[in-house]
């Protein structure tokens, strides 16, 4: 049943998102080409090369927003509007309904990230930035100077991104579910609840970390000092790596997982006992 629900979620959402992602790649390719044209500064057509990068940035933001909107809209429609009649009279557990949407949202988040990376790659590869040609040898050299602590860094980064994304999605679901308890102004209430959840979560997060690490001294070390003088590699190795491979991050991740689980049970309770389809 979970598989079937997931299948239909994908079917419904891919109709909108896949064309958007393809369009993004196409626009990125065109942007790149327009930059490469290197139209003469004096020609009235100069703007074509100039706006190439801008177009890319805008379309990257657009697919991010589009993905977010689809995730939010899908959950809202399924739980608070007429389509909820169809979904919640199916002989399936509410858990499965929530999880199928959750996983679908997560899948699109990953796809979107991958697509953005591809886009960035299309834009910068083999291009000339400040006299440096970005190509394979460059990447090889760049990454070799970075410390990855035997893969730990990559692992923690991926774990962090995954858990953060999952927590984000569940927070959105929780906000929408809480708003659905009311009859009117649901959209506005969803936003308010979401902001509220973010504030509460972040505050608790910092509190929990401080308490556990017995660290009540606020961070005074300013990162900007070190950035000025160091190369990216030095900043990476001396700042970013230690902050990732630390107790703090582990606590943070466990905390996020806990919050996500709590929010899941809130969503579940609301959808099972207080379903309010208007």
């Amino acid at each position: 049943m979970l598989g079937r629900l997931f299948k239909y979620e994908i079917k419904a959402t891919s109709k909108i998102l896949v064309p958007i992602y393809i369009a993004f790649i196409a626009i990125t390719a065109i942007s790149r080409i327009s930059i490469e044209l290197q139209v003469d500064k004096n020609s009235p057509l100069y703007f074509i090369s100039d706006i190439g990068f801008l177009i890319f940035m805008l379309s990257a933001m657009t697919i991010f927003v589009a993905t977010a909107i689809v995730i939010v809209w899908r959950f809202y429609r399924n739980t608070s509007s007429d389509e909820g009649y169809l979904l919640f009279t199916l002989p399936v557990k509410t858990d499965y309904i929530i999880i199928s949407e959750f996983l679908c949202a997560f899948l699109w988040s990953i796809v979107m990230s991958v697509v953005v990376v591809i886009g960035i790659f299309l834009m910068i590869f083999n291009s000339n930035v400040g006299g440096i040609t970005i190509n394979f040898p460059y990447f090889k050299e760049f990454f070799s100077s970075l410390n990855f602590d035997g893969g730990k860094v990559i692992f923690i980064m991926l774990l962090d991104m995954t858990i953060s994304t999952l927590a984000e999605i569940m927070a959105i679901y929780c906000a929408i579910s809480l708003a659905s308890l009311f009859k009117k102004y649901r959209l506005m209430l969803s936003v308010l609840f979401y902001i509220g959840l973010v504030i509460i979560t972040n505050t608790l997060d910092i509190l929990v970390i401080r308490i556990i690490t017995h660290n009540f001294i606020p961070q005074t070390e300013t990162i900007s000092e070190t950035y000025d003088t160091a190369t990216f590699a030095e900043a990476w190795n001396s700042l970013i790596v230690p902050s990732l491979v630390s107790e703090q991050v582990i606590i943070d991740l466990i905390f996020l997982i806990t919050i996500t689980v709590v929010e899941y049970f809130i969503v579940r309770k609301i959808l099972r006992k207080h379903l309010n389809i208007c």
Partner: protein
Amino acid sequence: MPILEIKNLIKKYHTKNVIDNISISVDSGKIIGLLGPNGSGKTTLIKLLAGLLTATSGDISIDGKKIGIETKAIVSFLPDRPYFANWMKVHYVLAFFSDFYRDFDMKKAMEMLELLNIGVNDRIKTMSKGTKEKLNLILVMSRDAKLYLLDEPIGGVDPAARDYILKTIISNYSEDSSVIITTHHIADVEKILDDVIFLNNGKIELNSAVEDLREKREKSVDEIFRENYKC
């Protein structure tokens, strides 16, 4: 064993008892009309039976089972709204029902769609309101369920569509299942009913066989209803 058994059912919203201690027993092979003015609790009761709402107290059992996944598998619910998104195509909707409901009779659905000239590639967006309602009805009736819940099935449709819907309900009749219809259009519907239940302010004011009413009161159910509720 009755196909539906409701005992002392109460549903509270804030401080109000929207369903106020009702008890009903419905046997198999019956077509029941659930009538009442707006706000009487009709739709709330239907939603409780469909598993969309949870009762505050009391018992509901459908075919001996408590409301849950098991009853959702044997209850076929037609809401008073179209519940398919406009972008969907007919074959998507058919596949959906077929995938999730073991009792869905694809052949029956296809036959009924063909009789109405509805194609599998038709998009919901292009359909008239009447056609959408017929499509919804076909899907609900193509399930071999034990209890059919039809919430205002003929509201706002033209007479031809209405006749089609009523005939479909009759043709689908089975001794192993029952149908509960809520409606405001009593005159159109009363000839297909076995029993009628009047609901008002969450309470049952009348629960009787239709023919008994006609015999005793020498009036149609429509007339009796109008007298009681002066709509």
